[in-house]
């Protein structure tokens, strides 16, 4: 018997077999099926068109109204309404609407809805985020979501894996975003196509859950099927007060095969920004030049967590953002919003001249709450900088950490935080 990776072990367990090999096609049982207000309506239409009249489990489906909610226009309102009615009809337990909702990939881990050892699919590409908890979690389309809701299982092609052996400790003002942008810069936007990215090594003890969630979140930007972290005490502590049921921890076999192994020394990671128009265009401060900006976005499923908001507040607090810059801060969930409020951070942002918004994916995908005009540039803690992603096709998005985004808001140009401290 050949050794298996973490991802392969979770897939084997959910397929009810003792062994799987990369390239093998399997049917596997699902622990969670996720959709949002954009992808769920397409899935619901398919579900109904094919005459399904029951869901496999009312507490293993999550519907999160986060992309265009609070409703951005009449069409978006109609889609959210369709999801809402479906949730009511089938008594979906994990239905999250405006006021309770958060950005899905911040919300599900926070609420303990996903956990180590789970097999999760979501009709959203950043579903790979939950690999931070030691789950196998991957993005799919709406037809897969419909099939998942109806049957509780789905087909998978077992992936091979790339191993990232993490050592060392991040320097001050460097965070998970710099790590993943550095890695994508190294392997490219299809460097992990069809594969798992497995993160392990003794440097994991120096990576917080927020850092890990951010890193796993962007595995898809390297083309990966999933990103997954080895479970340790930091993961267990995070799940302790959130996850109420038991969970399974899978470790890779000592003889597991990897396509490639990379050693990543956290202490050597610099500030890293992805220039337009691909996440692989990673540049360090000496190659930034003078990039004048119009907007800053701090938020999203990648970087809207408490430590992100806190890091930005510690740089912006007590200062004023630059004239001519719009700085939009979006805590990713209601809980994070409340904690940031209690800590005084939201008031600091407002005093500095920032916009503070209720949770939404809005600007990340050019939906609303920060769409860019022709020729405008934005430094953003989001995850994609494709042509037209945040608005006009002649606008530009620079992907950065919360620390760099906050510093840039103060100066009006792409700036490393050390310059404004």
């Amino acid at each position: 018997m050949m050794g298996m990776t973490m991802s392969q072990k979770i897939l084997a367990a959910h397929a009810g077999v003792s062994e799987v090999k990369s390239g093998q096609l399997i049917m596997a049982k699902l622990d969670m099926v996720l959709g949002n207000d954009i992808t769920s309506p397409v899935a619901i239409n398919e579900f109904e068109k094919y005459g399904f009249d029951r869901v496999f489990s009312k507490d293993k489906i999550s519907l999160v109204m986060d992309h265009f909610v609070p409703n951005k226009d009449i069409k978006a309102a109609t889609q959210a309404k369709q999801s809402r009615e479906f949730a009511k009809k089938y008594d979906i337990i994990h239905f999250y609407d405006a006021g309770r909702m958060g950005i899905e990939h911040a919300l599900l881990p926070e609420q303990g809805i996903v956990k180590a050892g789970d097999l999760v699919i979501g009709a959203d590409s950043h579903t790979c985020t939950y690999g931070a908890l030691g789950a196998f979690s991957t993005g799919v389309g709406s037809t897969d979501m419909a099939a998942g809701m109806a049957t509780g299982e789905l087909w998978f092609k077992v992936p091979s894996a790339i191993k990232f052996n993490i050592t060392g400790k991040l320097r001050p003002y460097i965070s998970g975003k710099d790590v993943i942008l550095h890695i994508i810069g190294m392997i490219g936007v299809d460097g992990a196509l069809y594969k798992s990215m497995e993160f392990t090594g003794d440097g994991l003890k120096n990576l917080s859950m927020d850092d890990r969630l951010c890193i796993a979140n962007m595995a898809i930007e390297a083309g990966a099927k999933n990103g997954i972290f080895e479970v340790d005490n930091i993961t267990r502590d995070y799940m302790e007060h959130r996850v109420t049921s038991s969970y399974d921890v899978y470790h890779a076999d000592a003889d597991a095969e990897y396509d490639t192994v990379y050693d990543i020394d956290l202490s050597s990671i610099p500030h890293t920004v992805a220039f337009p128009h691909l996440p692989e265009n990673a540049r360090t401060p000496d190659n930034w030049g003078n990039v004048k900006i119009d907007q800053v976005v701090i938020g999203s499923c990648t970087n809207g967590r408490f430590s992100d908001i806190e890091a930005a507040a510690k740089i912006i607090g007590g200062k004023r953002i630059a004239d001519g810059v719009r700085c939009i801060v979006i805590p990713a969930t209601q809980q994070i919003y409340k904690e940031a409020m209690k800590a005084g951070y939201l008031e600091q942002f407002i005093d500095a001249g920032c916009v503070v918004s209720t949770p939404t994916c809005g600007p990340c995908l050019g939906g609303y709450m920060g769409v860019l005009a022709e020729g405008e540039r934005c430094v953003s803690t989001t995850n994609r900088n494709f042509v037209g992603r945040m608005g006009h096709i002649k606008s530009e998005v620079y992907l950065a950490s919360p620390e760099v985004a906050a510093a840039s808001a103060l100066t009006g140009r792409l700036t490393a935080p050390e310059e404004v401290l």
Partner: protein
Amino acid sequence: MQAKGIAHKYGDNIDTDVIIPARHLNTQDHLELASHCMEDIDSDFVKRVKQGDIIVGGYNFGCGSSREHAPIAIKSSGISCVIAKTFARIFYRNAINIGLPILECEAASDGIDAGDIVEIDFDTGLITNLTKREIYQAQAFPPFIQKIIRANGYLNSVKNK
């Protein structure tokens, strides 16, 4: 099963945001999605495209978001097949699941130019460039996926089980 049409050619990393920009994701109407297909990378595409035409891309076609609206927009605009060197994995699943034929073939991606007339035999994986009189061999689908395509989509195959 066969397809024949004029090739529309694109480069590497054609992402789902340019295939169908998120500002149009407030609808699920297939024809409305088709009317905005490729608009951020090729604003004339919807005017040029004819029923049966073929899209040819490079590496990592369909990268980015999981929006099934992307293959839906392509299929509903009349495209009969997408050929690329590689596909991003979610787009690959979505295309199969909705019954949009896609083929991975480096030689075809390199050999076919915009405007070439291309014929495809899905049973054999043979791609014929009628304009250049060249033949390229694409990898055939594994039997499991062929079954989904024969059932005309994944939900049909689930429902028939």
